[in-house]
């Protein structure tokens, strides 16, 4: 039983998070992902020993190519001839300078699907701008909109857009493969991580362009639709450690029935009988006060127990889980064996872990999780498989500095 993308050859020039996440998903689904790195570049987050690299580069093979060496660039061109997919997230133009830009590769490999996932895309006044996910969050409106009134220094607490640019990259590559199946040749995909981020504000951008209404951050309050309560409420802390010792529960009432159930579970407090809590619209208009009253009620409750009580009664509620909760207490993740110890232990790095691909194929399951490889660890296997080189030829290349 093979995985869905087995047989697909991917030449991966990506680094940091967005690009490696795109190819991680392909590798998880069985593609032969060859990650290009070099001894010179393998520093910081590009080092196989850095946790950041470990997170995004499992299920790939590692080839060391010293691209400052002309002979190594010849090998790179030969690999591009064999690839189904070539992908990079360098600034625009770097692969062209190495002689493996799209126009050069398509001549010798018309079936190639060639993706460049730069920060800003090709062309435009910002095309050469340098970006990381926090830059994209800021420029696309995600930072401004994720926050509370009066503050612009909040934003999303993790690199959301890197993950999503990666996933959109994977998706676009799969779509291009389907097109190749039908049309017989590959194509170029210019992906702008900025445009990925701006796309997520789609309805609000339409609101601005049609209604001339610029929505503003509102914390956990829904910006457009009357839903109340809709917030996070403090519960009994789990320790006295600041912030991480806190416990919070998220509660949402999407209709009056759920509200009435919540009121009943709260013990029908006298304040809940006030007319202003009788309709969703009225509750929404007084949400700040409602949040305070519910927060007073939850403050001495155990968050996990309260979540179970509310959910069993039909009220949407969820413990605000942190990494320890996810890894040690979450029954759904445990039941799905979602967090896995990688059995093959790297002698240099030690024990590593993987979060599974969250796609469960019934007939072609993706249950293989190979550890991150050291730079050049698979030189011989890759160059033999892709180019038919002998062990001696690879060894000579390593000694000359070409494959390092």
């Amino acid at each position, binding site marked *: 039983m093979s995985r869905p993308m087995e047989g697909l050859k991917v030449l991966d020039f990506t680094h940091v998070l967005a690009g490696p996440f795109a190819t991680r998903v392909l590798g998880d689904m069985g593609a032969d992902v060859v990650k290009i790195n070099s001894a010179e570049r393998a520093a910081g987050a590009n080092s196989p020993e850095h946790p950041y690299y470990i997170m995004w580069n499992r299920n790939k093979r590692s080839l060391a190519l010293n691209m400052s060496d002309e002979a190594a660039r010849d090998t790179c061109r030969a690999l591009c001839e064999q690839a189904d997919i070539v992908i990079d997230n360098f600034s625009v133009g770097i692969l062209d300078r190495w002689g493996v830009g799209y126009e050069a590769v398509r001549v010798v490999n018309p079936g190639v699907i060639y993706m460049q996932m730069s920060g800003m895309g090709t062309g435009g006044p910002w095309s050469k701008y340098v970006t990381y996910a926090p830059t994209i969050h800021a420029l696309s409106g995600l930072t*401004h909109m994720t926050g509370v009134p009066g503050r612009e220094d909040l934003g999303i607490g993790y690199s959301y857009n890197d993950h999503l640019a990666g996933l959109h990259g994977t998706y676009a590559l799969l779509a291009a493969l389907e097109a190749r199946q039908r049309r017989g040749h590959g194509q170029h995909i210019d992906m702008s991580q900025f445009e990925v981020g701006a*796309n997520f504000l789609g309805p609000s951008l339409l609101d601005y362009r049609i209604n001339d209404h610029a929505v503003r951050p509102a914390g956990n309050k829904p910006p457009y639709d009357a839903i109340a309560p809709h917030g996070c409420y403090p519960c009994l802390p789990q320790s006295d450690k600041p912030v991480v010792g806190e416990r919070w529960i998220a509660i949402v009432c999407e209709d009056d029935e759920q509200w009435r159930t919540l009121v009943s579970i709260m013990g029908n407090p006298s304040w809940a009988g006030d007319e202003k809590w009788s309709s969703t619209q009225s509750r929404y208009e007084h949400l700040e006060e409602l949040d305070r009253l519910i927060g007073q009620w939850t403050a001495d409750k155990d968050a996990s127990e309260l979540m179970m009580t509310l959910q069993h009664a039909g009220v949407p509620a969820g413990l605000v889980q942190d990494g320890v909760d996810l*890894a040690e207490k979450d029954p759904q993740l445990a039941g799905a064996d979602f967090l896995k110890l990688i059995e093959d232990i790297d002698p240099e790095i030690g024990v590593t872990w993987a979060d599974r691909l*969250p796609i469960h194929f019934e*007939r072609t399951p993706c249950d293989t999780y190979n550890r991150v490889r050291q730079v050049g660890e698979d030189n011989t296997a890759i160059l033999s498989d892709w180019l038919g080189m002998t062990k001696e030829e690879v060894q000579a290349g390593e000694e000359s500095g070409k494959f390092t």
Partner: protein
Amino acid sequence: MSNSEEGALAGVRILDLSDERNIYGAKLLADLGADVVRPEIPIGDPLRKRGPTAKDGTSLWHLFFASNRRFIALDMTSTADVEKLQELGNRADIVLTQDSGFGNHFDIQVARKANNKLIIVDTTSFGREGPWANFKAPDLIAGALAGAVATTGDKDTPPLKTFGELNFIVSGTYCAIAALSALHETRHSGEGQRVDVSVHECITSCLEQVLMWYWYHDRLTMADGPVMPRQGAVHWTGAYVVMQAKGGSIMVTPAPDLQAQLAWLVEEGVHEDLLDPKYQEPENYPLLVMRLMGILRAWVAEQDVETLFEKAQARHMPYGWVLPMEKVGDNPQLNARHWWVPYRAGELETTGPGAPYHFSDTPWQMDESESFSISPQQIMNELGWEDRT
């Protein structure tokens, strides 16, 4: 986009039974040219009421997320319409379904028996089994339980939901990947399959530092235990911080070339003690970052935000101006890339968000034609989905 000859997915037939958890996946597929048919109840999809809305009441949420579909009205109290729903699924290449709405009326086993090439992408909030399998989880709850909400906000705010439907955009994107990877496999094997996608797992897989912090905190010099507290826009590295400048806020970072940032501050004459050799010791790197960010904060406060942004980018430093909606909505880069595309719904004509990627040969398109409900009796003829089984 009906009967497209151009899109990458032209000719792929999809029955879209999605709700808010996977509707973005159906959008991704439809926008690349798949023939995506979306049934709705006779009084209209409840998602057509989601805000924001135009003055005529058109839901802009629905206009965006339900783009490029063909809509059909089906009444699930009618046996004939239930059969039509089933027949549509039987003849599709892909069915996107879940445990609600039309998904409750579509028999997966019957469809798979009728069409052995059929791909079923079945989305659940928490998987089909386990103590939380039946939990209700709108976006805020899904984000809370999956670990996203705990990361966002600050010490003096509650944990915060990300704006919009970002959690369900994650699950929707995974659903689209699931559909096309299964289709790729089916093209080779000749057999379809069922694919399950858990929203909970999807969100948890996209949290950058959260699991890294838990697993590898003993290798991270800046980590103080397995959980990183919510800390506003301060990145886990400590080297990306939103600061107040004149005229707005800006995300400031000395990464990836700290020496370049130092050189800039030296040029400006505001480097204070940053050239002290103690800061060059590797073990003092966190100290250097902290000191540097403190100096930057005071310096940035005196700079005009737009000028600072342009100056930083001219030096290849990834500063990011924190743009409000109106500046995203009229952005020079998006305008120059012709990103905005026409949208139309009834009398409403406008331009709105375009593609997150540009294909050289099979362009992403927004269908401007009217695409409201097709009458039930026309379904099979108009769709022209001949029997492939």
